[in-house]
């Protein structure tokens, strides 16, 4: 009897160890058509910017679906998905195939720019900042000729509680300058909360600057209630002299939402080039074939509902650096900022 119970239990346990189909739901099928349908559906349900960008995603399905069948190759699937996603013109939308012969891409204007030819921090360090310092996690700062402060923010990837002390150190060093240049060119995006905190170190007043909502369901109008973002004085002290913010086409995501916050401050002027135009939060997902992709999941606007998605924030003064000038050690946008603060 004991032996029978033992054998029964053993078989039962063996069955439990390999019953994916019984115990779990069905994995999504991995053929070209299923992959296309899956990607299209994920965007249909989670992408937050069809309406602001006036994109008819249903039409995209009918147009591109006809180009795929179950015998399509990986290369053909890639080409069709690339053409379809390019309709979105969004630097937060991208595809990362697992096939090393198929290059990853994003679909915004940055995909058309071969390299960053209009900014390099080494030019500023070598030709403008005699004595620069670096404060973790991402602040390069110093004092330029004419007693003008300079802060380059490499990224916005840390949370506000970790930024108070470094900002204290940076602003303490620059507190007696007549103005500060905040340079958000180059680098990468990060956390909107970081930008909110840093902007709060430049004001003593409350300013509402942004409204956000994200998809919370599959329907086209399934969004969360809008969240309003504001800045107010942060830290033990704030820098309230004149500020010039330097931007260019690679100023993206959390850097841009930081710019929206700074744009509410009367003492701030923007110099350089238009920002990237990719504000929304982005999530990373994968397809049944293992390829990765990213989606913008919400609508990020100014507090009074202006959307710069796909457009970018234009500067107050347009200055587009030339590669030849930079290679010779001249950053024209920086020099314009210095001129304004002088």
């Amino acid at each position: 009897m004991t032996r029978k119970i033992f054998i029964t239990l053993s078989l039962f346990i063996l069955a439990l160890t390999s019953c994916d189909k019984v115990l779990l739901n069905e994995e999504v099928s991995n053929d070209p058509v299923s992959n296309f349908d899956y990607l299209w559906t994920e965007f249909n349900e989670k992408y937050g910017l069809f309406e602001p960008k006036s994109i008819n995603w249903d039409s995209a399905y009918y147009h591109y679906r006809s180009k795929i069948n179950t015998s399509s190759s990986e290369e053909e699937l890639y080409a069709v998905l690339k053409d379809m996603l390019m309709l979105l013109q969004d630097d937060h939308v991208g595809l990362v195939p697992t096939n090393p012969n198929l290059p990853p891409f994003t679909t915004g204007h940055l995909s058309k720019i071969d390299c960053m030819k209009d900014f390099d921090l080494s030019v500023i360090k070598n030709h403008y900042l005699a004595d620069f310092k670096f404060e973790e996690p991402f602040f390069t700062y110093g004092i330029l000729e004419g007693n003008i402060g300079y802060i380059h923010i490499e990224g916005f990837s840390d949370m506000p509680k970790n930024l108070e002390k470094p900002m204290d150190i940076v602003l303490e060093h620059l507190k007696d300058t007549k103005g500060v240049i905040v340079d958000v060119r180059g680098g990468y995006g990060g956390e909107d909360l970081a930008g909110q905190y840093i902007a709060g170190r430049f004001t003593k007043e409350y300013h509402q600057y942004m409204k956000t909502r994200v998809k919370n369901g599959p329907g086209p109008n399934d969004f969360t209630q809008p969240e309003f973002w504001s800045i107010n004085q942060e830290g033990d002290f704030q820098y309230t002299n004149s500020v010039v913010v330097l931007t260019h086409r690679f100023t993206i995501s959390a850097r841009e939402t930081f710019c929206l916050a700074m744009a509410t401050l009367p003492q701030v002027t923007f110099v350089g080039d238009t920002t990237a135009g990719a504000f929304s939060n982005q999530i990373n997902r994968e397809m049944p074939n293992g390829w990765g992709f990213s989606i913008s999941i919400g609508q990020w606007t100014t507090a009074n509902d202006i959307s710069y998605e796909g457009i970018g924030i234009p500067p107050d003064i347009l200055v587009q650096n030339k590669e030849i000038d930079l290679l010779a050690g001249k950053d024209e946008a920086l020099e314009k900022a210095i001129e304004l603060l002088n």
Partner: protein
Amino acid sequence: MNSFFTKLLAFFLCTSFQAIAQDNTLIKNDFRLSTGYENFRILDLNASPLLYSSNNLLVGLDFERNKKRYLWSLNGELSVGNSQSKKHGVRTAVFPDKPNLYGEADTTEYELNPFLSFVRFTFNFSALKQIGHSGFFVGGKIGNHFNFSGLGADSWFFNQLSLQAAVRYQKEIGINSKISAELSTSAFSYLLRQPYTLDPSLPDIGYFKAYLQTGSFFASPNDFQHFNFNLSYQYSLKNSKNKIGLQYQFMWMNHSFLENRNLSAYSNSLSLTYTL
């Protein structure tokens, strides 16, 4: 089915607070350490179309108190390992950076779900009462099960706080051996799942509180099904009160969450145990 669970729940609540006459000769306390291997599989269609499998190291600590016909136990378990798509295995995303002013370019590589990208922690408190003089015990559990993992090219988490009905059967085999089997199921759960787009975006309250606000809810057995099965064998060492043993555990859960967005998972584990 629901009335059966209701009765078990009521029984647990009644027996938990019943006064028991003191009889120290019948009190038995056991501390048990366990370590072993666990395989955890999950398919969360809201996070990824792919089934993920993780091979984990499992460590556990149990305290069990047997007093007359009542069995109280506290149990904590931690498993850590990696989690990869069962179909595609390890993947590395390679991003060529744009060249800088001087034409220099790097590539940035991200390994999806690196080693130790899976953590699971469970904690349970159970109270069971013997039925007559049989080997059966019935009662309930309060348990919490927390999961964190790389899943779907992003990070993923899940937490379940639940009230469970439990039944156990244990039997002495000869002088030195004991076998027990326990089955429990959730009657009522408080779940924490990431919201629909896995992004709460609530600026003022921080991510943790934001997830609690946007992704937590109560679930009945109709929405969330959860079973645990535990089978253990213990052998008393000669000239010692200590025991060694083997323990097999199985867990299964299923959460209905929007059409075609179910979460389902199951795990199997095998551990060596040492009871003091």
